[in-house]
């Protein structure tokens, strides 16, 4: 607003200032922690997650698949930090490696969702007309099936494996990405700068990728970071009902599922995987929401 104040004359300035008056007085604490935004908090947690992903295996003293690396169902202690499971496997190693698998699945699934969703959305939103009609109807079909149900049917058909899981999860999110990209693209292509660029004789391709896409990128980044969390929850749900990846590979949902039989006697089998899922999703949501607020203020 500062620049506007310099340029505009007094009458306009007054009008602008009038609009600036906060309508509802919000009580502010005396010492606001300016840097302590959800975004900053989320970013720090995200860095922590990446560190765990990268150097976690250095700390795991046992192989995640080694049966009887310790006594069975022993509670958390100094040797087995998170305790052991019913087969005597070290839970800490299993979680560290399972966590990597989970993140790999979710990030890959998000990419699989984002790339087609965004490309189709850009095309639909930019060209509109019959292309938009066709794509939107196709997406409607996907949208009319509850996401998890489609994933379950696909996995049942293709057989459970990491790649099936990625495909099954990835497909469920395409409508969301498509719709948001399309709507943002439509509102962007009505903007003056796009019109200006077009009148300079730039190609459609350049308009889409140099002008529209960079402008909607923050929204899509927010969407993607939250999508990873959604897929982590969905994937762990699938793992829980036994349609996740199969042993000896482990993934957080499957770990949880194997712990559910012991949740009365061995709480650690249930608590630690849940904590990891919860922590990751919370981090991603904080980061995403923080990012959204940051860009909304611009």
């Amino acid at each position, binding site marked *: 607003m500062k620049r506007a104040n310099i340029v505009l004359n007094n009458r306009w300035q007054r009008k602008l200032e009038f609009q600036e008056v*906060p*309508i*509802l007085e*919000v*009580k*502010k604490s005396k010492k606001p922690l300016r840097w302590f935004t959800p975004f900053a908090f989320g970013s720090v947690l995200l860095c922590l997650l990446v560190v765990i992903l990268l150097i976690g295996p250095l700390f795991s003293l046992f192989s995640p698949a080694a049966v009887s690396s310790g006594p069975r169902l022993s509670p958390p202690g100094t040797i087995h930090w998170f305790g052991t499971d019913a087969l005597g496997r070290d839970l800490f190693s299993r979680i560290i490696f399972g966590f990597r698998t989970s993140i790999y699945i979710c990030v890959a699934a998000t990419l699989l969702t984002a790339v087609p969703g965004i490309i189709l959305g850009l095309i639909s939103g930019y060209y509109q007309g019959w292309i938009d009609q066709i794509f939107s*109807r196709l997406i*409607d*079909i996907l*949208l*009319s*099936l*509850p*996401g*998890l*149900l489609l994933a*379950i*049917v*696909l996995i*049942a*058909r*293709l*057989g459970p494996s990491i790649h099936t899981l990625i495909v099954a999860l990835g497909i469920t999110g395409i409508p969301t990405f498509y719709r948001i990209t399309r709507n943002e693209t439509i509102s962007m292509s009505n903007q003056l700068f796009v019109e200006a660029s077009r009148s300079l004789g730039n190609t459609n391709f350049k308009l889409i990728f140099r002008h529209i896409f960079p402008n909607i990128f923050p929204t899509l980044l927010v969407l993607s970071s939250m999508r990873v*969390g959604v897929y982590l*929850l969905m994937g*762990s*749900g699938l793992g*829980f*009902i*036994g*349609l996740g990846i199969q042993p000896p590979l482990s993934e957080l*949902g499957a770990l*949880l599922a194997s712990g*559910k039989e012991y*949740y*009365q006697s061995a709480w650690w089998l*249930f608590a630690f995987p*849940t904590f990891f*899922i*919860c*922590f990751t*999703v*919370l981090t991603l*949501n*904080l980061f995403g929401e923080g990012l959204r607020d940051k860009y909304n203020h611009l």
Partner: protein
Amino acid sequence: MVIAIVRRIASGLLAVLLASLLAFAILEASPGDIVQTLLGDESTIEQQMTLRSELNLDQPFHVRFLTYLANLLQGDLGVSLINGRPVAEIIVHRFINTLLLTCLSTTLAVVVGFSLGAWSALHHKGLIDMAVIVLTALCLAIPSFGIAIFLTQIFSVHLKLLPVVGGGSLKHFILPCLSLAIPTAAVITRLVRARMLDEINKQYTLTARAKGLSNKQVWLRHIFPNALIPAVTMVGVQFGHLLGGAFVVETLFAWPGLGRLTVQAIFDQDYPVVLAAVILSALIFQVLNSMVDILHRQLDPLIREGD
């Protein structure tokens, strides 16, 4: 108005039709032969041929799909491959159970979500607001079965108040209902809160205050109804998701509903049941979405005037 509604319903029906074609095609592209699975390895070619023609598997794809559709319209969904009972009969029974559970948990979630959301918006940046934000963020980050197991631990194992699995009495409802309602309530709370905070800063709120309306009137008559509109959409979507997607909670609590039936049928390779469940879910999803759209139109004068 009427044209818009008719168009919405027609496009919804088309989507259901195409979705069932998609499901039919996915379930059709079978890696293993159903006939061989059913009869076992020691069956003769003749037996296999007979069963194949009984199941219409010797017909081309489009003929089978059209036959299936024709039967579907007459209420005949085929028979279960496992126990030979009519699929329609099995599904209706299970669906009612799921519907009960979903209605109850959605009602709970709506009541809690709306009041909590409005309450925390009223105390924006206060202690209550912070508590609600943190709590809902946590609820959204825990998988639903995590909540379910946590609740079971407290109410069934420690307090011994409620039964863990099964259906029938009212007590059996409580835990599955809570496990489904908590994440839904969290979503609704956050949405209502965010929308109400949005509405506070709009011009009409200022006008309402300038007219000299009391705080209560401004909130109840102006801010809340406008914040309601997007929340209605969200409730519809969430209801649809619960109806078609309560697999995990239903499996965990052994609730005899549609979700558990679907999962069981998938493990049993009972494809007629899976197919019927998928089509039913798609249909419900579309019906709900159309209802939400129409309701949205009624609630939001801006859309109505757009016609």
